[in-house]
């Protein structure tokens, strides 16, 4: 599934998400799980921070030599009998995938989890052309039944509650007895397993993403816990790998460094259950595996990030730690962000890929608390890059008038320190007076956005500058 971005409506999306009882129930169930598991997993490896440094350095090295590694990778895929397709845009990617599927005579296409497919709208495009895409990752399958998009990059159905899954299965699995028992989580899983197992054997084409592409060997690497990606790529006649071009790593040792930080950051595992390295189609003596192997290398705006202040974002390995730890994501979930990539990584990537005009609201969805950067395995300076986007938004005069007016007012005083200090002293005195003996303010002019939800505390003590001069730092 892919839908037109609703990113420009971010503010309304957020309000809707905050008022949505189901989303709030699902989010509160997920909130601590990811955070606790990551914390535990990173503590068991004393070298974890050194591994993060190494992972950052290796990806910086790749981005500085990306053209050479892409050529080496392509050479090795071709040597293994695979095909490489270069897609400059999402539209190119859709056309390439459809062409391969048509040549394979595909009626059904099985999908392992791929965010590139979401980014390019592959499912809708295939469906419009009479080919049925079937998502096989359990979470992706659930949201496909619901006609939704993923709300998290590794837990796509994190917003869906168990009763909703139960209802969806009853509604869609109509070939099963209507009065069957679906009470337990295990019965739901078993049903999905049986339904999807059949589908693996029906598809003519399997599409997966790639967590990495290894230049040295021409292999694509997928990392999953379910095994759906492997069934999707082993059983059909044709395997298509969708990968953005920055997914390259030089060697198997480099891939290992990434693996050592990926699962720990994503799900708190030391290793995900299945990590699969694939090169080319099945060999003459192989009893299974696809007869054709295609890789689509997608640019879609990424080369324009190279050499800019947004290059560091191309180190991202899509673990989801930034969104798991983000107070904004934790409150509104992924759909409010309005496009494929939510949370802090989405706030930086979205304006890069769909433009600051449509995506410019997302970098404002941050308190700049810095938790995202502090947990990012690739040490991506997410808050700094969100600030760059805010600057660009302001320069392009896309920022709302009231914000520009407020910033202008602040700038006027900031450039006149004496006035600024008088202003803060007067402001504090006024706030104290208004708060009275209660010690907090339930209402405040121009600050309804704050006081509608919680009281504003009464200012205590002297101003910062007064304290600073007084020698208290």
């Amino acid at each position, binding site marked *: 599934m892919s839908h037109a971005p609703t990113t420009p409506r971010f503010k309304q999306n957020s309000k809707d998400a905050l008022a949505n009882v189901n989303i709030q129930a699902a989010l509160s169930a997920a909130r601590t799980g990811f955070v606790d598991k990551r914390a535990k997993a990173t503590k068991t490896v004393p*070298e974890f921070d050194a591994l993060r440094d190494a992972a950052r*350095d290796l990806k910086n090295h790749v981005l500085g030599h990306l053209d050479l590694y892409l050529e080496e990778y392509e050479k090795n895929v071709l040597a293994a009998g695979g095909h490489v397709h270069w897609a400059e845009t999402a539209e190119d990617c859709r056309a390439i995938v459809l062409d391969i599927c048509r040549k394979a005579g595909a009626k059904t296409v099985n999908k392992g989890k791929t965010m590139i497919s979401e980014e390019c709208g592959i499912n809708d495009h295939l469906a419009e052309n009479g080919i049925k895409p079937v998502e096989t990752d359990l979470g992706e399958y659930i949201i496909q039944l619901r006609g939704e998009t993923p709300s998290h990059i590794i837990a796509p159905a994190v917003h869906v509650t168990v009763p909703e899954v139960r209802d969806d299965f009853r509604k869609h699995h109509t070939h099963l007895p209507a009065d069957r028992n679906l009470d337990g989580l295990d019965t*739901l899983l078993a049903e999905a397993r049986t339904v999807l197992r059949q589908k693996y054997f029906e598809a003519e084409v399997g599409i997966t993403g790639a967590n990495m592409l290894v230049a040295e060997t021409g292999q694509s690497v997928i990392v999953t816990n379910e095994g759906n990606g492997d069934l999707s790529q082993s059983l059909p006649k044709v395997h298509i790998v969708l990968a953005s071009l920055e997914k390259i790593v030089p060697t198997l*040792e480099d891939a290992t460094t990434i693996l050592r930080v990926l699962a720990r950051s994503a*799900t708190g595992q030391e290793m995900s259950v299945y990590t699969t390295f694939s090169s080319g189609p099945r060999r003459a003596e*192989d009893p299974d*595996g696809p007869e054709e192997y295609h890789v689509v290398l997608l640019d879609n705006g990424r080369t324009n990030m190279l050499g800019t202040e947004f290059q560091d974002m191309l180190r991202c390995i899509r673990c989801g730690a930034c969104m798991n730890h983000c107070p904004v994501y934790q409150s509104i979930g992924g759909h409010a962000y309005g496009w494929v990539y939510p949370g802090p990584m989405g706030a930086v990537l979205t304006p890069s890929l769909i433009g600051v005009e449509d995506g410019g609201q997302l970098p404002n969805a941050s308190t700049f608390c810095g938790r995202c950067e502090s947990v990012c395995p690739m040490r991506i300076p997410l808050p700094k890059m969100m600030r760059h986007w805010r600057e660009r938004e302001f320069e392009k005069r896309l920022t709302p008038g009231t914000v520009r007016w407020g910033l202008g007012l602040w700038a006027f005083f900031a450039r006149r320190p004496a006035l600024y200090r008088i202003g803060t002293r007067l402001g504090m005195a006024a706030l104290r007076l208004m708060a009275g003996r209660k010690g907090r303010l339930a209402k405040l002019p121009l600050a309804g956005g704050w006081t509608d939800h919680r009281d504003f505390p009464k200012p205590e003590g002297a101003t910062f500058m007064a304290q600073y001069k007084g020698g208290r730092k």
Partner: protein
Amino acid sequence: MSARDRILARVRSAATAEGDRGAAVATRLAGNAQTAPIPAQGKSEGAARIDQFESKLKGVDATVSRIASAADLPNALAEELRRRNLPKAIRFGSDPMFASADWKDIETSTGPGRLEEPATLSRAAHGVAETGTLALTSGPDNPVTLTFLGETHFVVIRARDIDGGFEEMWARFREIGADPRTVNLVTGPSRSADIGQKLQLGAHGPVALHVFIIEDE
């Protein structure tokens, strides 16, 4: 200009790395530029290594038993099938260890995985003690689909094929020039937390993973 050439031209014009870029890439690809740290848990040796491999496997919901030699495999497998109430049948590839074994009353079949596979058997070319990971390499001796379609997946590994960490394993791949189409790193049975964020085993792949470690030699 093709899409390929346009993309590569954009990458090249934005390349920020200094110095001889070609030489830097060649050095890295030559494999003598191990710059990343190898965690201590990826450096175990001897008996401690086998113990670590076993305990890491158990930590990811796999079960493990040790057997003295390959000749003990049929009995050990029969016992496991009985314990799990599974039919006395197994499917595997053409690995010589399986082809030459005396399976007695276990019904055997050979070939890739089918829709219903109650129990499958694979041989892991390598194991990694660092994380309790099995490395299965594709080919006629080891069909990939047996690893994913078996409801209970049995894997045999010789103790001497267990490496401390991943670097050691990749070095051994290079040493023997191993170049299989697929390398499957397997760390536990299949799982998913996509329904209600509760982890459950057996999402699409095996519900259970049992590893036999052969201790001979």
